[in-house]
């Protein structure tokens, strides 16, 4: 299930690929790309209470060249659009995108008829792998998003799934 978003490489062994995907999934280096309110919740997730480092994702790299995941946390507007696409290009393959918050998913509270400046959804710019709804989403939701991305990369879910109601 997680194969289609990891492009092919020169050497291809099934076992090696699963090992590589497992390593990639558990050491996702996000790029510090906090735009607005969701950035504060991302920082809270990086804090010691919600502790994103349990999933190997606490190394927030400022430079796109050293990051695997671009967590778009906030609103992308027309003036920032080219910068976002440039940053996305500058990330080395394999790369993934988490659209955090309603603004990144669909423009959120700014998707109105008077909207003249906000890009309604980051998936208009480049393919997005995981959507985390919320305005801003709670830190637990971001952790669930990281787990979902890991499941998407490796194909199986290592962490227990929280069943609603229990």
């Amino acid at each position, binding site marked *: 299930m997680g194969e289609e978003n990891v492009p092919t490489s020169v050497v291809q062994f099934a076992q090696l690929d699963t090992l590589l995907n497992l390593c990639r999934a558990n050491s996702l280096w996000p*790029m510090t790309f906090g*735009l*607005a*309110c969701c950035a504060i919740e991302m920082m809270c997730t990086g804090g*010691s209470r919600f502790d994103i480092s349990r999933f190997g994702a606490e190394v927030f790299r*400022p430079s796109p060249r050293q990051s695997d995941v671009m967590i778009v946390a906030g609103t992308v*507007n027309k003036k920032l659009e080219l910068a976002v696409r440039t940053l996305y290009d500058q990330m080395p393959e394999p790369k993934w995108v988490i659209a955090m918050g309603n603004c990144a998913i669909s423009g959120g509270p700014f998707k*109105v008829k008077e909207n003249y400046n906000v890009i309604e959804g980051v998936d208009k710019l480049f393919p997005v792998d995981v959507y985390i709804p919320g305005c*801003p989403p709670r830190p637990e939701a971001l952790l669930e998003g990281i787990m979902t991305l890991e499941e998407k990369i490796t194909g199986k879910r290592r962490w227990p799934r929280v069943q609603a109601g229990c």
Partner: protein
Amino acid sequence: MNVPVHLRPDETFVLNLGPQHPATHGVLRVKLTMDGEYIVQAEPVLGYIHRMHEKLAEAGTFAQFMPNTARMDYLHALAFNHGWALVVEKAAGIEVPERAEYIRVITVELNRIASHLLWWAAFLLDLGGFTPLLYAFDDREQIIDLLERVTGSRLTYCYMRFGGVYNDIDDEFITGTRAFIQRLRGRLPRIYHDLVTHNIILIKRIKDIGFVSAEQCRRYGATGPVARGSGISYDVRKNEPYSVYPEFDFDIPVFPEGDSMARYMVRMHEIEQSLRIIEQALDKLPGGPVMGKAPKMLKPEAGYYYSAVETARGSLGHRLVCDGGKNPYKLKLRSPTFSNLSLFGEVAEGMLLADALAFMGSLDLVIPEIDR
């Protein structure tokens, strides 16, 4: 006295301290003309997170704009709620019961402490220290839990209504707040001051860096901790009292030096003052309703209204023009950081890049509040 340096055009290069930069804490871009390490000219470029709040204010009714206020300065969202509620209550002449005023002051001051804690964490992150972030976030999570009990959200609060607040505080909130006050009072001298404020590296990095004179603050309209760090004793809660602030005795920390260290100390002392205010507000908390009588569809009389509120970054003003309809005719949001940042270009000239970043951190910028 250093003699002015004359630079030929081929001796400077342009550097983008761009939208995605760890030190700009958001999407502020500063176009720097550099001579090696020195900044020849700094020109902030705004608009990378402009989200049309003023257009949305004109599109929706008065009540529909309340959630927007929290998404401008999400670090001190309750003060923005308070400002918007105040200006509409002035325009429509709505009375707010006593208990609601006290609850507003308590929650706004708690939110101010949370905002200063996050500024402290981010400022030291800019200067290279990661550990203070963990301590500050530990305390900040305590405040967020308390406020989440009452308002229902962690960051973008929509807690105030025209005429009061929509949810009363219960005893567990009060005991939790008192416990938090004692805990933070215990930690402030040990962790925040001994470990960080008296740290020689921090003092070397921010002492005598980014000097802002009182006259510069007045000409650029800088308010809040930036003005109080340059010796101007201006705090909207004292100079233009609103809500029930006159009933609490707290003093305004003012430091005359005007450098980044002064602004740092102003904010650290403001945390202690906010604790005092919360304690007094909890002691004098009256009973009674928390929601006054307010018409369902507000149609305030035509005219020009203004309300000023003291947020963690300065004096926030709502300039409201009503034409008697159910939508605001025009709302101008006077954001404090917009004016505080406008003096960056003049002060950062001739500074080292590392010092300019320390100076920008001491201005405590929240970019969506600048771009609105």
